[in-house]
């Protein structure tokens, strides 16, 4: 275990060290202390290392992540795991806005609540939230899964393409072209697997599924009112 104290070492040095690790590195376990809300901690990782951050982080933590497993023992600011490609990012506390934005792959777990626009423009990432999500979550979502064990704020899934949304609690409102869809046994099985991977305890049979009505894919004059 390599420990880096951000109260003593510059963040850029840490990120440079993490970026320069070769694929066969033996330095596979890292602990970062005293993050104190700094932005861009552990961004752009490419190797399958484990990084644990003790404390609250600022914006874009673990952004663009590939392969790495990043755990935040605290709360996090905007854009956690933004544009993640693969790997796992876990937040033990709450996440601010735009968690997992534009993510292409991998798994983002937020054990607490996530703020507004969680999963905005998600492109294949799986996001599992133990608590609730704020307004306009999964806005323009294109692929992947968003699982919400709590409630979803207003305009869930606005202008959604093909992502699959599972919500256990109350949905304040659905956004344009987002509808409730049938929850089949296959969906329940897929959801149960996601919850298990995320280590979030919830009963998959209690969730409802939401997705795209596919009416905004192409302009149609009859749908002008929906735009």
């Amino acid at each position, binding site marked *: 275990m390599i420990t880096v104290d951000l109260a003593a070492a510059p963040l850029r040095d840490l990120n440079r060290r993490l970026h320069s690790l070769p694929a066969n590195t033996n330095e596979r376990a890292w602990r970062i202390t005293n993050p104190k809300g700094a932005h861009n901690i552990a961004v752009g990782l490419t190797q399958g290392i484990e990084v644990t951050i003790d404390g609250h982080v600022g914006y874009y933590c673990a952004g663009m992540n590939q392969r790495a497993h990043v755990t935040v023992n605290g709360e996090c600011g905007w854009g956690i795991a933004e544009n993640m490609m693969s790997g796992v990012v876990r937040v033990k506390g709450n996440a601010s806005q735009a968690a997992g934005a534009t993510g292409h792959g991998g798994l983002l777990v937020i054990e607490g609540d996530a703020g507004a626009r969680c999963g905005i423009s998600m492109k294949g990432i799986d996001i599992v939230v133990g608590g609730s999500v*704020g307004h306009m979550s999964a806005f323009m979502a294109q692929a992947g899964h968003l699982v919400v064990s709590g409630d979803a704020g207003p305009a869930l899934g606005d202008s959604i393409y093909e992502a699959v949304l599972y919500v256990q609690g109350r949905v304040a409102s659905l956004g344009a072209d987002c509808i409730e869809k049938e929850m089949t046994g296959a969906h329940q099985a897929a959801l149960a697997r996601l919850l298990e991977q995320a280590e979030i305890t919830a009963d998959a049979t209690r969730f409802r599924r939401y997705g795209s009505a596919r009416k905004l894919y192409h302009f149609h004059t009859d749908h002008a009112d929906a735009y």
Partner: protein
Amino acid sequence: MCGIVGLYLKNPALEGALGRHLATMLIGMSERGPDSAGIAVYRAPVADGTLKLTLRAADGACDWAALRQAFARHFGEPVTLAVHANHALVTLAAAEELVRAFLSQHAPNAAIVGYGQSIEMYKDMGLPAEIVERFAFRSMGGSHAIGHTRMATESAVTTAHSHPFTAAADMCLVHNGSLSNHNRLRQWLRRKGQAFETDNDTEVAARYFAYRLGEGASLKEAMTAGLKDLDGFFTFAMATRDGFAVLRDGIACKPAVMAESDDWVAMASEYRSLAALPGVDGARVWEPEPEVVYSWSRGEAA
């Protein structure tokens, strides 16, 4: 982009260190606002009938000693005047309107930055760290304070355009965001008798809230009314002599984070400005929800 911070002490034992903590919070927001910075601090309230004024030399230097003499001749002793860089803190026994009229006649170069019985306001152009040093913020005690670091988008980079803005006795506002209906609202407020000093959108919000408070609204009621009347992007922190409140617009694209411990309530645009507060590791940290007014008054959560 701008940075805003606020610190409201619940434990009076911390009052001596208010300025030190606020200075750290303000400097933490330097990257969000490097062109100007300012604070309003509430401390050492003067007796009823006495006015506490923060003045600023608006254009070049001001002869503060001569102004003190002029105040004494016109309004009578006692008058105190302490110079802080290009600002001066004055106490005298006079009504604010009379002092304002006197200044416009006899010292048009001395602009009123803040006034009331408790508030002191200091703001200027420069990096937050420079402003902190210039006005010795770290040495200031007090019960609560708000601060702002500015990266101007809607109006000029001048001290007059920098925050906080005041529009009533012991009231001030800081703002991260931009208002889109400030011109119309300014016209409306002018018809209600409010006078404006700048073309700044935040001044409109400050005068709007002052107008609502003047109608008898509580801090919370005034901010709630603002949700209907103010159009645009905002995270606001507002302070009064005894109160502190935070509000975000419905879209909530301007950031805010809050923390509360047994000893204090704090807000900042970003957590890194809260990270050095005493006991923050045990504090409740949360992101204020859109369109929810968070307010505190002396000794109670509102």
